[in-house]
């Protein structure tokens, strides 16, 4: 008997499985690399110190190498070359190290998404840039700068996990979905999945709230400002990453007049001041993604 050929384009059973997985909390959430999780927790612990952090990073050679590369980048060490991790930790600070560790851990290898690596890599770059811009927005608004990076970085973490889930379920059903269908399902379910991810990764409540309400910040209650900051960061990141003239791409004028920035009560001259930090943000982005 000949092997059955995969069915083409029958999303309903796949979608039903995705819905069921979300409902029963059976989404296969990738493990945040242990060392990244520990680094984030360590930097939140008031009793932690730089020596502990350095020794933790040392335990993961890939991460240690990445931290050293960032520490030695032009942005952070313009005049000197750092040779030890201890030195790098001292130079960059514990919080920045945690941000680098988390950003480095959220990469395409974390997800099993054959055929969609480039798409996910793009999404991750966009999220990282969103986090960096969210930080600048928070500073301009005198709001929570500490939470801004992490909320910006993780606001769309549901996307790669959604793709991973869609591909797994379609393989399970023996159905081959078109790219358009996969992306459509990704958009439809990524938010609910994203909430599961940050909950399982034990992220702070502020992060969970932002992910939950990212598509409707007006419903975010006490987390509304934090959510608006993440949305604003994402809009600016999107503006800088998309090709001007392409569909859905905000022009600079549209960006400056964006409703979320008005909701944050940023006047247009204040927004222009934030956008002047483009070089600084790009340098940080370049350093973190080397």
């Amino acid at each position, binding site marked *: 008997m000949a092997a059955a050929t995969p069915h083409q384009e029958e999303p309903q059973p796949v979608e039903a499985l995705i819905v069921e997985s979300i409902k029963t909390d059976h989404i296969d959430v990738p493990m945040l690399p242990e060392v990244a999780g520990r680094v984030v927790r360590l930097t939140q612990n008031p009793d932690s110190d730089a020596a502990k952090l350095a020794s933790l990073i040392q335990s993961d050679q890939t991460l240690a190498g990445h931290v050293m590369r960032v520490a030695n980048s032009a942005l952070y060490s313009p005049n000197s070359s750092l040779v030890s991790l201890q030195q790098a930790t001292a*130079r960059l600070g514990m919080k920045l190290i945690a941000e680098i560790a988390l950003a480095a851990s959220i990469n395409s290898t974390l997800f099993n998404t054959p055929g969609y690596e480039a798409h996910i890599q793009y999404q991750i770059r966009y999220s990282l840039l969103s986090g960096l811009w969210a930080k600048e927005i928070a500073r301009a608004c005198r*709001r929570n700068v500490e939470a801004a990076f992490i909320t910006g970085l993780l606001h769309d973490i549901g996307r790669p996990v959604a793709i991973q889930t869609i591909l797994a379920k379609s393989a399970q059903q023996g159905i081959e979905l078109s790219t358009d269908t996969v992306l459509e399902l990704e958009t439809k379910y990524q938010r609910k999945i994203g909430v599961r991810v940050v909950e399982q990764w034990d992220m702070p409540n502020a992060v969970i709230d932002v992910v939950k309400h990212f598509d409707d910040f007006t419903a975010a209650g006490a987390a509304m400002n934090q959510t608006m900051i993440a949305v604003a960061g994402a809009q600016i990141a999107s503006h800088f990453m998309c090709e001007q003239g392409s569909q859905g791409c905000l022009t600079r004028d549209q960006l400056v007049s964006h409703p979320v920035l008005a909701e944050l009560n940023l006047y247009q001259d204040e927004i222009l001041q934030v956008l002047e930090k483009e070089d600084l943000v790009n340098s940080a982005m370049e350093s973190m993604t080397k």
Partner: protein
Amino acid sequence: MLIVGSGPAGQKAAVQAKRSGARVALIEKTRELGGSCVHRGTIPSKTLRENALRVKNMRLNAALANFELAEDVELATLINRLNDVLLAHDTYMRRQLERNGVEMIHGRARFLSANQMEVTSVKAEKQILESKNIIIASGSYPRHPDNIPIDHEYLFDSDSILSMMYLPKSLTVLGGGVIASEYASIFQALGVKVTMIDKYPRPLGFLDDDLTETFINGFKHMGGTWMGETKIAKAYWNGFDAVVVETENGKQIHSEKLLCAAGRIAHVKELEIANAGLELNQYGLISVDENLRTAVPSIYAAGDVIGPPSLASASMEQGRRAACNAMGVASGVMHNIIPVGIYSIPELSSIGISETKARELHGDVLVGVAKFDEIARGQISGTQDGMLKIVSDPNGEKILGVMIVGEGATELIHIGQMALLANADIDIFVESIFNFPTLAEAYRAAALEIVHQRKKL
């Protein structure tokens, strides 16, 4: 009437002007009403204070509750009721203004002339408004000294301090004024290791030494460190693990975060007051006369923008009076007897003049002091680190001032305020029967001390 700013002064000015028959527009730069008082200062810090007191009391009663505050507690959870409080406040204020027919304009105002203002919306739409009278009630914002690079991430000002994500392990507070004292003691009560640094020998220098001594002792008793007579050379984030404060005498203080509470200055940077013929005085404030009128007769100013006492309570009354004066309506007697409330832990409050000031003005005044540990209610509730002081004239008859330190001080002070306003004699506290056991009994105890001294004159 145009009113700039919807804080306590602007809001009351708007309502009064409308009730006096004016067509009123209230211009507010932010989307929310209420100004810094509601959104960044008074109300958020008092909300945090309530939880700090609970934490402190639970720690004191650890034997009953086996309580321990989680180390990585998010600050938002300690201000958990804030959103509800702010929403309720915003709704109440909006309704009051709407009910009174005040037109609310969300935008940033600048003067074009003494009677014209341009308002730019957050979406850059402009409109020009003209009015016979304008009241500036644009409030204040934190002063940032050049040597303290505030980044709102490691080094905060009083407007951004509550945006911290986690309760830090340690905090340096620069300043010795009301805001510094409040935040220093609140964070210390929450278990943060707080170091408070100021150039003066004592915090809250406008109060008598015995009161500030009680405050310092209470602060130290909770584990805080007070460093008086210390000037700051610079402060910075070391890029690693701490904010470093370098003092002029060569000391270094490290902490996880820093709060700079170096005073507040008039928030007029976007108003372009020069176009109206106004300028700031040497203190960075707008000068007004006793009618709250500025150097330009058609422009009035009220609230923080004119400087001390910079209390929400006083600002409300100034706003009301400014509107009355502009409208030519009698505003009643302006009492200089305004209570000062300091929501530190423990609380402090005063009315009238201090003992130090009274001695300068009246010579050998009589003073009666009641310590809370000698009052039954103080012993019962454990509120023993407090005191109430009455200052009377040299004959021991007229009340000149009352000062209180200890929990409940900001409420308790109003008994003294009423006595002062009624020009009552000291004896009123002796002749009145207070509930037993209450802290109010301290009035009687302090008054009896004065009566006793009076007999010896």
